[in-house]
């Protein structure tokens, strides 16, 4: 049985790696099709055709796309992420600091939103149909329906502009104390928690409600089990699969999808780096960011799959 589970997990991992290769392929050729020529942009409109040709040659831009792709993949595998077109810095150096920032924001948001969302999701499922459940449902649907830039802008307007409690922009370099840190992260984290939690709450509620209506939950009730025992020991373990999948989807959003939040709060994260790279036609940077987002997504989804496999004794 254990070898079976190992082979299932192995299969998931292989699928993840293949997906990553396909995505990097797609990313590379999609970015190659972006209009405009990097050399022309870098040298400006006054550049002579000779200078442009020279630069193209130096940057390997005159080689066939397949060759460039292979060169890039080989670089990725060996840890050489290449050099930025825009400012000639190694991409690994450009990304590393930004990546840490993104992970910090994602980590703090996850720490707050997961327990918060799970608690709300589970309790509203247990108290289904009560006033509490209705209030939670209305609020989550409300939050899902309001775009995040709206939430962020409103927060800035209230807390930074009128009340002047919090800074409107995040200056990472000016953080000197824990108080500064809290002030800086408060608004981005709260906004993201709103966005991320709503999905988790709805998925958790649905999954728990489904297991709560099964005959084995009724059986537990007829054994005299308390409500908390019914939920924690009988309903939740069987709802784990869908719940971890909802978590993985929401968390992957925190890695790559927070561009609006990063822009509004001017937070120096990786998503903002990627958007800036698009503006400067910095292809290697765009490609690397895209691959990082994809890898993050795949890692989370694969972990969720593995947890779902392990938690199901029929597969064990």
């Amino acid at each position: 049985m254990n070898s079976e589970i190992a082979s299932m997990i192995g299969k998931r991992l292989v699928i993840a790696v293949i997906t990553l290769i396909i995505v990097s392929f797609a990313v590379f050729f999609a970015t190659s099709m972006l209009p405009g020529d990097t050399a022309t942009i870098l040298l400006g409109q006054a550049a002579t055709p000779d200078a442009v040709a020279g630069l193209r040659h130096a940057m390997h831009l005159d080689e066939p796309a397949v060759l460039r792709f292979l060169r890039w993949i080989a670089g990725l595998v060996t840890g050489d992420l290449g050099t930025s077109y825009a400012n000639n810095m190694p991409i690994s150096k450009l990304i590393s600091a930004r990546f840490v920032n993104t992970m910090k924001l994602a980590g703090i948001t996850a720490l707050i939103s997961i327990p918060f969302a799970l608690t709300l999701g589970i309790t509203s499922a247990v108290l289904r149909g009560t006033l509490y459940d209705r209030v939670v449902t209305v609020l989550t649907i409300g939050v899902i329906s309001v775009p995040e830039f709206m939430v962020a802008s409103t927060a800035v307007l209230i807390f930074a502009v009128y009340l002047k409690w919090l800074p409107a922009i995040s200056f990472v370099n000016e953080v000197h104390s824990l108080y500064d840190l809290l002030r800086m992260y408060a608004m981005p984290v709260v906004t993201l928690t709103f966005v991320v939690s709503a999905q988790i709450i709805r998925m958790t509620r649905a999954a728990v409600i489904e297991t709560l209506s099964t005959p084995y939950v009724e059986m537990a009730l007829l054994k005299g089990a308390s409500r908390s025992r019914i939920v924690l020991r009988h309903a939740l373990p069987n709802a784990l699969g869908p719940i971890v999948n909802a978590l993985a989807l929401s968390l992957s959003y925190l890695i790559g999808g927070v561009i609006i939040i990063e822009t509004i709060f001017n937070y120096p994260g990786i998503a903002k780096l990627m958007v800036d790279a698009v503006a400067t036609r910095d292809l290697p940077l765009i490609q690397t960011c895209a691959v990082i987002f994809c890898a993050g997504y795949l890692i989370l989804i694969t972990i969720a799959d593995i947890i779902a496999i392990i938690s199901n004794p029929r597969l064990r």
Partner: protein
Amino acid sequence: MSKLVEIKNLHVEATTDAGRRIEIIKGVNIDIAKGEIVALIGESGSGKTTIALTLMGYTRPGCRIADGALLVDGKDMAGLSERERAKVRGTEVAYVPQSAAAAFNPSQTIMDQVIEVTRIHGLMTSDKARERAIELFKALSLPWPETIGERYPHQVSGGQLQRLAAAMALIGGPKLVIFDEPTTALDVTTQIDVLRAFKSVMKAGGIAGVYVSHDLAVVAQIADRIVVLKGGEVQEEGTTEAILSTPAHPYTQELLSAFEPKETQFAGKRTYKARPLLEIENVIAGYGPIQADGLPFMTAVRTVSLSVEKGRNLGIIGESGCGKSTLARTIAGILPASAGNIIFDGKELHHDARRRSREALREMQIVFQYADTALNPAKPIEDILGRPLSFYHGLKGKARDTRVNELLDMVRLPKALRYRHPSELSGGQKQRINFARALAANPKLIICDEITSALDTVVAAAIIELLKELQRELDLSYIFISHDLSVVEAICDEIMVMYRGEKVEHLTREDVKSPTHPYSKLLFSSVPKLDPTWLDTLVLEPELVRQYGGA
């Protein structure tokens, strides 16, 4: 006589989806003495499970106890708080569910769930509880009592799970156990073991029981007293012997008459025509990818041959998983056979229904077990019946309408039903529509796959009568698949017994009483009889049981 349970003037209300309140239990009074087993019997919707569950102070979502007292050992379950009720559940009153397969949590080991009652109520130490559980497993004659608890629910058979569910109910030392149709989902051969195990444990412990069932013959074996319910009211109440021998209420008589072997005149005279209507030769079918030898990965039907003569009926009988439904699907071409020949009316049919001619499809129809899933819930009855009329006969407009009315008439349903949707019909009515849809094609052969097994006894008997009448009128032949011997006996001229994908015996009506194959012997002798002493006096050859017995 000391009463353990007194149900006084019980009223239960249900709230419908539309928000209307309807009374589903209308003033029921039942007493149960200590150590007595009382059966609640009635068709689905009669309120038998609802009443049984109120004894634990529980009603299913949407229902509530509106009035009355439920005294269990002096405590009024209707009046207790939820916390006090929880204390009684599992310790004084315990529950054995209808489908143990669904009532076990799939992600916990069986032992954890069996001894959970002792953990919840703090009855004994975990080690003690395990010992007690193993004793119960032995008493319920479960195999590998020492280790079966370490398994997960999906790793044991249905009959074993049902007994494990009984162990789960008994571990708290209850005074009253509620059995909710505990053997309905089991094969007859398995049912015997489970009934015997229940009976001996209950008698040994002097435990009182409420046995909910729709099957009089099963109830006759285990109950001291029978309460007959219909429409949420008690129709008749009495000792098992009295109810079985001198039923007073018409409804009870109807229930009993469904068991009586009827004098059946068969329309099918043996015509000795040169060629039968349907001939199956060495058919092999199964599921999964085709292996190198051309056979499917999982063979469900192994080299089966049969023939059906015109105007005569063939019954196929066997336990669940024996391949009888697969055989039906193979004949109909839904699951193409991997090998063998299917010859219908002298012509060889393609194995795959998609490659058969429309005429061939029309002449052979199949009716499925669950009318609920076989009828499109979004369409009114007239569309459901009209579709095959247009497809096979090209009928339109008025001609089609007239034919729909005729079909409804044939299955003895009022014409007004044509405007309704399947959800607005009763189970028996839905099955009639399901059958009428097959009739719409004007077939020569109808394959009936367990069409009565989801129905109540009385309703099922009426469907069988209808099938016989239609056979006389329309010159049909049936292949009738069932796990229930009495149903097959009632309608079939010939009976084929299947076991593990193989045809083990072919019997005519005359020799049903004396089967020769050991599995047929076991199967036929396992069908419960109304005689209350049947189970206790039944002697099965141990060798047979070991070889073919359930699970």
